[in-house]
């Protein structure tokens, strides 16, 4: 399968990329690792007329200890997130979740920023960064702005990014030793999750987010509220799907997804509480 024809532009910096995307407007798309976009283009589900390749913007690939949070460049590849010693120490949930994205070949090319900007509810890292209370730094022609992960996801493959804005950094609060768990339920090793759960717990606070339980990644606020008011894990997990509007598909019905979310949230909370 071959994508529809397009013009290819290569950007050497974030500024150049933003200026290029501004020139070509809505029909242009950024190309990072390409592991979400190119499959869609091959299926002709996406037909941008211009691709702005940002894959060589080297200064957007980093993982840095930034005091109370870890700063991750948007073009950091999944494999580098998975193997980052800084994340292993300060946000091990994210490093572990990255190791579950696709397969090794995909993780060598796909980027954390590409995955988040693509805003696929079935992807692992949007939900994981949502659970961790991350902030996304986006850059446009007028400079940078911060968007909280909980305000970022607007609909299926839709985000708060404006057409001329580019995601440049992900700020992940340090987990400070919180217990955590990542549960991914699928049929084949490399598949997307039928349902997934990213969760952490520390004293009275917690964060729980769901993969593939709606048109966006879902923050399971009802679970955290229940936990903070003293509910048992089993009781809190019974609220797993309260904030979700799952869809049925060939892998799972709405009822089955709802059931899975409750089971996986319970398992996640049990593991995070050890």
């Amino acid at each position, binding site marked *: 399968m071959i994508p529809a*024809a397009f013009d*290819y532009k290569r950007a050497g910096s974030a500024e150049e990329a933003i200026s290029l995307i501004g020139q070509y407007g809505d029909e242009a798309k950024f190309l990072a690792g390409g592991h979400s976009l*190119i499959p869609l283009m091959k*299926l002709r589900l996406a037909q941008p007329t211009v691709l702005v390749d940002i894959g060589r913007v080297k200064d957007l690939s980093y993982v840095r200890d930034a005091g109370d949070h870890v700063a991750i460049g948007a073009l950091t590849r999944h494999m580098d997130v998975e193997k980052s010693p800084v994340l292993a120490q300060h946000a091990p949930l994210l490093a572990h979740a990255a190791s579950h994205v696709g*397969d090794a070949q995909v993780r060598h090319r796909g980027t954390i920023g590409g995955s988040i900007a693509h805003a696929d509810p079935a992807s692992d890292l949007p939900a994981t960064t949502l659970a961790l209370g991350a902030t996304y730094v986006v850059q446009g022609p007028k400079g940078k702005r911060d968007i909280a992960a909980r305000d970022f996801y607007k609909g299926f493959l839709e985000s708060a990014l404006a057409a001329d804005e580019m995601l440049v950094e992900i700020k992940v609060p340090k987990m400070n030793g919180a217990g955590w768990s990542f549960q991914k339920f699928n049929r084949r*090793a490399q598949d997307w999750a039928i349902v997934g759960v990213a969760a952490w717990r520390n004293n009275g606070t917690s964060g729980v987010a769901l993969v593939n339980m709606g048109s966006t990644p879902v923050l399971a606020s009802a679970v955290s509220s229940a936990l903070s008011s003293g509910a048992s894990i089993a009781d809190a997990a019974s609220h797993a799907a309260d904030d979700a509007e799952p869809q049925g598909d060939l892998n799972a019905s709405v009822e089955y997804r709802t059931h899975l979310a409750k089971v996986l949230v319970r398992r996640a909370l049990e593991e995070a509480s050890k």
Partner: protein
Amino acid sequence: MKVSITINGTTQSHDVEPRTLLVHYIREHAHLTGTNIGCDTSSCGACTVHLDGEAVKSCTILAAQADGGTVTTIEGLTKNGEMHPMQKAFMENHGLQCGYCTPGMVMAAIGLLNENPKPSEEEVRLGLEGNLCRCTGYHNIVKSVLAAANK
């Protein structure tokens, strides 16, 4: 657009459409047909090659993205008529049946050992999760990779 890629030690330049996928560049412009196209949806791994030293799926990369890069395909493994130790291990352990997944499987397995030279059996199985064998010959494939790792 003009794209230059060093494939198996030889730098080649070709004029291609921007939408040309790396696997098509390898097969149709460089005329190296050892790299197979399987599912064409980045699931099966038959098209796995090394780009700048890492295993990647060449059906999901534009040739333009690999411009200036270094690619190794299955044809590039043989040195002076000697098979690569991974190829030998596949031969000795009957790590292939129909052979269609084999070039990608061998490239992925070499990539795995580059990153983890002494993997456990479980790590081999997990490390090759991106490569499917429709003959279901996984048992001997895993055996082959473990044999290569112990050489």
